[in-house]
């Protein structure tokens, strides 16, 4: 990534991180306000508050949505801080879990479920966070563009022949496996993914004819 691009990414990251703090302050106020309502209900004598059950149900829904908002903004905040340090020590389980939350909406639009399958033990590499997240997102988008509706995409960090690999696999029997490589390799995004992987010192491959993109990553970007 050239110097100007790096500065642009850092700028977007800084502004986004600042905004996430603002959103969290809003969520904190909603949380405390709904919590106060709950406290008041708790000290209200039985039978003196009409429709108490419905009120509690509604408060529980608010709490659930606050938690959802906190999860999303926390991930967005972490994502926005990605450009802060490069290269950085990265846990591939954390990167995939973060991407699942951030990219789920794109998958949901195609009725696709996005999930991660963490590796045990976790795989830690030294790499460029922004380029790695971009490569992972490109892989998801490539799959979403060539597949039909429905099914599941699983992000699975693992070791293959002693090499660190991020697998982006699609599970759906409707897709004819033999067409997969041809469909993927003809997309512009595939070329873009190859470029990002070259920058990371790795490569992107398709596992045989099975519908999975494998991102091979060096343990250190300096290798």
């Amino acid at each position: 990534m050239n110097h100007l691009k790096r500065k642009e990414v850092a700028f977007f990251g800084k502004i986004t991180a600042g905004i996430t703090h603002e959103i969290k302050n809003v969520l904190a106020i909603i949380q405390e306000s709904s919590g106060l309502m709950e406290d008041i209900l708790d000290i209200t004598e039985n039978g003196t508050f009409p429709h108490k059950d419905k009120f509690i149900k509604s408060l529980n829904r608010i709490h659930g949505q606050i938690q959802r908002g906190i999860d999303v903004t926390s991930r967005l905040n972490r994502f926005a801080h990605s450009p802060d340090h490069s290269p950085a020590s990265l846990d591939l389980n954390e990167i995939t879990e973060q991407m699942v939350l951030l990219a789920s909406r794109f998958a949901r639009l195609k009725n696709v479920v996005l999930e991660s399958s963490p590796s045990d033990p976790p795989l830690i590499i030294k790499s460029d966070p922004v380029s790695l997240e971009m490569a992972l997102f490109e892989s998801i988008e490539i799959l979403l563009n060539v597949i039909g509706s429905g099914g599941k995409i699983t992000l699975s960090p693992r070791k293959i022949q002693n090499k660190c690999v991020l697998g982006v696999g699609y599970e759906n029997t409707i897709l004819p496996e033999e067409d997969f490589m041809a469909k993927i390799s003809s997309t512009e995004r595939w070329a873009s993914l190859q470029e990002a992987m070259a920058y990371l010192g790795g490569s992107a491959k398709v596992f045989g004819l099975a519908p999975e993109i494998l991102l091979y990553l060096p343990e250190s970007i300096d290798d």
Partner: protein
Amino acid sequence: MDRMKILLVDDEQEFVTTLAERLELRNMNVSIAMDGEAALGIVENDPPQIVVLDVMMPGLSGLEVLEKIKAMDSKIQVILLTGHGATKDGIRGMQLGAFDYLIKPIDIDELIEKLNEAMKSMA
């Protein structure tokens, strides 16, 4: 038993006043300040037992206020509130003498647990 005496410091007025109401419902004696200068004034004139202090505030930062409180009265316990991705501020705060730190938005039960722990440590 005496009521726990708390000072809440945060520049988000709605947040700090609502949290104060919740703690008062739990029989705590709570005062509030919306910036570092106001907080230091309260510490000087009507010292609390525990200060719950936001790290990111306009004017004096939470860490600067923490240092000044500790210089005024080292027995006052301080619990910091940090944003996500700012845990390094919490750790730095503990090095400066803070009792602990919590990440905003906070869970009321977790805050009460920390307040009780801080009180016990003063006994």
